[in-house]
């Protein structure tokens, strides 16, 4: 098929999708866990134009007469999972030239055709915070994405009310950004890490002040500085700081910086958070935690425990989970919550942590994270209890479009693995079957 014919077909497909979306679709008979509100047995979820229009018990929802219905009896439906910290898409942020590079955008690095995107879909993840790494005090700007099937990054972006694509910024402390014994610009001690960060944030305060003073007089504006511009957004609270931190003292250092400069912050990883749970609660900052199968791997994670989520929950901290993919596999993200329950978390909070709590950390809780009328139709169909090892994600929907279906052989292979699973780019725009096979 020539390129022109393919484009024509693609256009035709797109309009077909739009038509299908405008017709309401009702998923009937499933156990629905809306996250906000009690689970609904024998429930109905109605979606249209990529949004949820109704949700409730079967006898309480009047399904629109023109709706197509999907029998979901015996299945469980819950919101698409929100992953507040991931590295899918073969991303690389800041380079080795400096420890603080706020101007770096992960936007400019992500490969949306990498099969890690599809692994995330297979794991039921519909919204993700894609971050640069932790080998820097500041490794750049993160990106909040809908895990759609996209040909380019533009297809996955989420826009705010000012039509600006959304994302945060990655900060880190502890051992990862350190280069002890080095002669370069990287810090060698924890105190140096904090001082370098404070120095940059003070500069950003000056930069912001110059802009404020310039008022409407453009001639008085400071010369544009990409790094300062970004940190000014941080100081203005417009860009959430996602602070990689493990050890209890590093957690407190992050909180100390946050208090001094007044930025908005999510603590990320928080391995020793269980030691300073009251302090985290008092600071009022949320914590996105990682669940690893055993302690160690590096010195600052030797006190990892499955109980961290439970201890933080009891202290009143807003707890979320993340994959840190590839550190843990997006396909088994739900086990983080289940192991959190094993460590003493309540089922409700553990599921909330995978969805609403993470959505709040990304300022996306008005759009995703729960099943409520008006919210995006991002949801997953599960074969059973979300926290059971035997449960599989059967289908994943993003804004009403099915992006993963375990009954599709290629999707099944992504979900389980298999020969050739990575060599092909499973760019599964359905009408483009021959492109997916790499036969172009």
């Amino acid at each position, binding site marked *: 098929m020539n390129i022109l014919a393919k484009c024509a077909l693609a256009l035709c497909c797109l309009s077909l999708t739009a038509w299908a979306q405008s017709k309401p679709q009702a998923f009937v008979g499933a156990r629905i866990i809306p996250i906000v509100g009690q689970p609904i047995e024998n429930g109905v979820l109605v979606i249209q134009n990529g949004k949820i229009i109704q949700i409730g018990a079967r006898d309480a929802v009047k399904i629109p007469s023109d709706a197509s219905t999907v029998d979901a009896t015996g299945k469980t439906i819950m919101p698409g999972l929100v992953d507040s910290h991931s590295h899918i898409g073969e991303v690389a942020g800041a380079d080795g030239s400096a420890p603080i590079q706020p101007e770096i955008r992960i936007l400019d690095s992500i490969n949306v055709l990498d099969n890690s995107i599809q692994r995330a879909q297979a794991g039921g993840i519909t919204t993700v915070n894609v971050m640069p790494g932790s080998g820097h005090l500041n490794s750049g700007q993160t990106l909040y994405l809908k895990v759609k099937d996209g040909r380019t990054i533009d297809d996955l972006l989420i826009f705010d009310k000012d039509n600006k694509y959304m994302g945060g910024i990655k900060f880190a402390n502890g051992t990862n950004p350190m280069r002890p014994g080095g002669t370069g610009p990287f810090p060698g001690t924890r105190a140096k890490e904090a001082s370098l960060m404070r120095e940059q944030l003070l500069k950003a305060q000056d930069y912001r002040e110059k802009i404020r003073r310039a008022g409407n007089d453009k001639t008085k504006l400071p010369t544009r500085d990409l790094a300062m511009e970004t940190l000014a957004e941080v100081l203005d609270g417009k860009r959430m700081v996602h602070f990689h931190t493990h050890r209890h003292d590093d957690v407190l250092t992050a909180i100390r910086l946050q208090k001094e400069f007044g930025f908005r912050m999510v603590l990320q990883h928080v391995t020793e958070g269980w030691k300073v749970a009251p302090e985290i609660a008092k600071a009022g900052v949320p914590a996105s935690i990682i669940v690893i*199968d055993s302690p160690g791997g590096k010195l600052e994670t030797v006190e990892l425990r499955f109980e961290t989520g439970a201890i933080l929950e009891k202290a009143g901290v807003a707890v979320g989970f993340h994959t840190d993919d*590839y*550190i843990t596999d997006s396909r088994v993200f739900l*086990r983080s919550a289940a192991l959190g329950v*094993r460590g003493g978390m309540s089922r409700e909070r553990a599921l909330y942590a995978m969805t609403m709590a993470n959505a709040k950390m990304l300022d996306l809780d008005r759009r995703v994270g729960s099943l409520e009328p008006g919210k995006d139709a991002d949801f997953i169909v599960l074969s059973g209890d979300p926290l059971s*090892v035997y449960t599989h994600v059967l289908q994943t929907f993003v804004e009403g479009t099915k992006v993963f279906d375990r009954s599709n052989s290629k999707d099944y292979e992504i979900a389980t*693995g*298999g020969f050739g699973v990575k060599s092909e780019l499973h760019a599964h725009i359905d009408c483009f079957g021959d492109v997916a096979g790499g036969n172009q």
Partner: protein
Amino acid sequence: MKNGKLIVVWLSLLLLTAYCLPFTAKAQIAVRGETVWTMTTNEPLRDAVVLINNGKIERIGLSSEIQIPANYRVITAKVVTPGLIDAHSTVGISGYLNQPQDQMQIENSGAMQPELRAIDSYNAEERLIEWLRGFGITTIHTGHGPGAAVSGQTMIAKTVGRTIDEATIVPTAMVAATIGNSALQSGGRAPGTRAKIISMLRSELLKAVDYNRKIDDAKGDAAKMPTRDLRTEMFARILRREIPLLVTAHRHQDIVTAIRIAKEFNLRLILDGVAEATQVLPEIKASGFPVIVHPTMFRAAGEAEFLSMETAAKLKQAGIAFALQSGFEGYVPKTRVVLFEAGVAAANGLSFRDALATVTIDAAKIIGLDARIGSLAPGKDADLAMYDGDPFEYMTHCVGTIINGNVVSEVVR
């Protein structure tokens, strides 16, 4: 003052006794389980009792049939299984701190060093041993890791004991080898290619053939024996089939290569990793060699990029003897937990019992200890794991572990 000193002495003695107790006292215990998976039959026993005496299993039967003697400590649990076996690990050799001083799984000075003994670097007080014990894992086959053509020996230990001698049950279990990229050297050092790995291995084995011939020719005459050479000695033992060669190979061509060499030299081969096993199932099956398959949740990256959560189920369907493992990780997690890996295997095509077998009786068979561990039967080591529900469920806890008849863990994990 004198009294005070006496109290201190008595207290110390008491503490010492308490400390030594788990390792010395052979308590009499009755473990009563709502469900008891003995692994000697296809179905579990319901409401059964395992009597433990002097470190061994004394008797097993339904509660209705067994009178628990009055002096036995009774422990009850929802689900009881044999103590779990991790068929291939590097725990105790590759430490959880992940610092140069505790990473003893690979020695980079040479490509082939089968003389390196695991017992000379096993750290019995490694934190991860306690971690695994808390999940019901009672035996680990551990040692030198994948990542060199021949990296060294492996050993088998119970996950208990303050010293290597208390822990070890088989000091030299296998010799670990790797066919694949991780065994390749750079900068002109050998081996730099797969073919070179194999030519070096064959050369060493041929040397050992000669060594064995000299030993045979000596007919016990010490004067005629060849000069001892630790390296050749180990290859010679492999050739005499005293010790299996454990070959980590992920790519399908490497799996076939391992089989080719094992046939040429009539070796006892155990295939390890085998991410691409499904490409060569008939060849593995025909070889008759057992497999220690990659962890179900192993990272699908590098040479293992085509692994599948269903590899275990496909090996089972093909009728190949296999066990699960925790494997080796360079970063996190420093050890996986075979209990979790078996659970994911059970969720991806294996039956519950077959999945449990991969970390109990089938693992015991592959590491050559099925007469002693891996199932619950009279006369076997009293190694038991106890759970408050389906052992594979994420939200279930391991509530107790017994090794050699001693309760060695009562944490709820």
